[in-house]
């Protein structure tokens, strides 16, 4: 990869570099001071009893209730670790004999590339959350957490991707993704509003650009129970048409983690213990519900697109921490409905009747998920076994 010289700002228009650097030094030290001071032990307050209720009041009521129920429902952590969890020796103090000489340590060409035999290397899941999903995939039909906790889904937010200056994908004859997803979202909303009990909102109802943050803020402010982001795919291989669906990946809620850390200071529990519990509970709910929703919508779209294009490929359901899914508190999915780059698919999408069929499929998929006896999700699949080219 060629390294290009970095552009130098014109001195007249920009602040002098030494002044900029001094600003940055101040900033670094200030931030680190704040970090150190925030970790300092709390001095006894004049009215410590008054502090505790205030902290408790900041905890969202629903979070406390969910914690109480969820702690009793959570499975024991599997303690999955990429490598066997034998505790290392107590002493980890290095002796001079343990130290390597300063050297660049790199991996040489793997022996299998050179044709030698390979020693088995345990290929365990990278994280406990991955292990959780593997377990769920192998286990019989699960009871949805939402059903267990008696949670209902009333506010549905549909997010037509792109908009305004951001056209998204553009098909061979000029159809734009932003227009198609808005049309389908409006059709889906119209269908859902005919059913009782749902409040259906669109992140945008016009051809306007919305940032990802604005979409997330809209959904969270609206109290979204579900979030569905609509997109169309585009591939350099025009002969390929496929359906793929993403749902929320793994994350830790920063607000909850920080709040729990405060709550647990001085208790017998380490902040890490509660953080893991909270993370697992929140992760489990959002992840599992997002996964179930993703599968239900994906199957419905596969059938709808496949009814017109038997050659369409199933790219499967995957996890992905897309920014638009990352900040949402509700179960959320991102759908790549089909490939706009596929000429025949684009021609079908130009037909309003086909778009109505896609909206109907999304409605079916959504209702199948929302129904109490929804079928358990199938295992995620990736590319089929035949080559792409």
């Amino acid at each position: 990869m060629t390294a290009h010289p970095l552009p130098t700002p014109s001195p007249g228009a920009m602040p002098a570099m030494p002044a900029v650097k001094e600003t940055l030094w101040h900033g670094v030290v200030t931030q680190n001071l704040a970090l150190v001071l925030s970790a300092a032990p709390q001095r006894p307050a004049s009215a410590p009893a008054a502090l505790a209720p205030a902290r408790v009041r900041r905890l969202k009521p629903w979070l406390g209730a969910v914690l109480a129920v969820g702690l009793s429902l959570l499975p024991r952590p599997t303690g999955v670790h990429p490598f066997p969890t034998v505790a290392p020796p107590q002493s980890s103090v290095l002796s001079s004999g343990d130290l390597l000489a300063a050297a660049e340590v790199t991996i040489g060409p793997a022996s299998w590339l050179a044709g030698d035999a390979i020693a088995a290397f345990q290929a365990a899941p990278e994280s406990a959350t991955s292990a959780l999903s593997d377990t769920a995939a192998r286990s019989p039909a699960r009871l949805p957490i939402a059903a267990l906790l008696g949670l209902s889904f009333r506010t549905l937010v549909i997010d037509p991707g792109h908009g305004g200056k951001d056209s998204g994908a553009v098909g061979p004859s000029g159809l734009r993704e932003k227009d198609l997803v808005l049309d389908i979202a409006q059709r889906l909303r119209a269908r859902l509003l005919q059913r009782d009990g749902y409040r259906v909102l669109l992140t945008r109802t016009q051809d306007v650009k919305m940032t990802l943050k604005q979409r997330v803020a809209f959904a969270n402010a609206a109290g979204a129970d579900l979030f569905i982001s609509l997109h169309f795919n585009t591939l350099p291989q025009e002969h390929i048409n496929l359906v793929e669906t993403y749902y929320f990946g793994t994350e830790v809620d920063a607000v909850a983690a920080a709040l729990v850390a405060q709550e647990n200071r001085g208790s017998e529990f380490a902040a890490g213990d509660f953080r893991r519990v909270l993370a697992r509970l929140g992760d489990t709910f959002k992840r599992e519900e997002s996964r179930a929703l993703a599968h239900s919508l994906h199957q419905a779209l596969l059938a709808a697109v496949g009814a017109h294009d038997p050659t369409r490929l199933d790219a499967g359901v995957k996890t992905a921490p897309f920014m638009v899914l990352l900040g949402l508190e509700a179960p959320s999915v991102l759908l790549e409905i089909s490939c706009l780059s596929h000429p025949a698919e684009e021609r079908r999408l130009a037909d309003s009747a086909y778009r109505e069929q896609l909206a109907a499929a999304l409605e079916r998929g959504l209702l199948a998920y929302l129904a109490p006896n929804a079928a358990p999700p199938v295992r995620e699949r990736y590319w089929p076994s035949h080559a792409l080219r």
Partner: protein
Amino acid sequence: MSVPNAEPLYLGIDLGTSRSVIAASNGVEAEVLSIVGWPKDFVAQRALGGREVLFGAEALEHRLAVELYRPLDNGVLRDGTPQDQRAVAALIAHLIALSQPEGRPLRVAVGVPAECLRINKLALRNAVALHAEKVVLVAEPFAVAYGLGALLHAIVVDIGAGTVDFCVMHGTMPGERELRSLLTAGNAIDRQLYELLRERIPEASLTLEMARQFKETYGFVGPNDHPIKVRLPVAGRLVTYDIAAELERACTHIVPPIVETLIDLIAAADPEYQESLRHNILLAGGGSQLRGLAAALTREMERFEPCSFRCVPEPIRAGARGALALIRDIPESFFSQL
């Protein structure tokens, strides 16, 4: 008898999920896989020459004789169990030892993921503070920007194994609006490639580590008109397979999240400087070495607005070098506050 050197030694550390790098003011630089291994039993320890702990490639080479730990996940301490804490403490001690401190007081700057939680920052800080007189933590992409002098109207995208970190520089300390972290990074590519190959070649004996090797050796994004052949063990024999399609699919899937994040960051920036930002996007980290990535990002961003991407020189070491440059530049008077 020689007098001990009382002059501080400045260190910049990049603790990565896959690799950790240290750059020292005495000119020493070292790069180690973020792996720690303890001998399984006394027989293994004897076979390893009596050593109590191994690091990096050596630990991996002797993986059958040691209990391996990767103490970092997504750039921060994994789960915070006692074993992980011991492993990261040992890794940090090893890195510092590689810098040949010779008893000098240490002043260390450590790069952390852009959206690192306070809890994780404290854990890392405490682990480093056992060895150092002064410790500062900085966002990793900010360290890269500082080291390159890209302090005005630039975006740094640091593509690591655990995270892809973004930092928008406007001549001030980047705040929450200017820092982002994505979890779809190098490890996600490895997992994707592993799953794709397992789906297509279920009879082959395949591991995640092999998938990582394929990615690092052959990984690419964008068009490719020649096969990429590797030999995989199938029932004890080696069989040749063309894995170009799976490689492309796996490596490409980090592009959409990066593009979406860049669009969001640019859109949130001051409109007078958005054009400057678009043409000053720097790619760093091991993932930036994926063949064709810069061109693919340029193509994808063109649908939004034309952008220019550049790969920084020696991208794996840019973070540690930037952290070193920062800790060396901070005046002595500032240190008294820490």
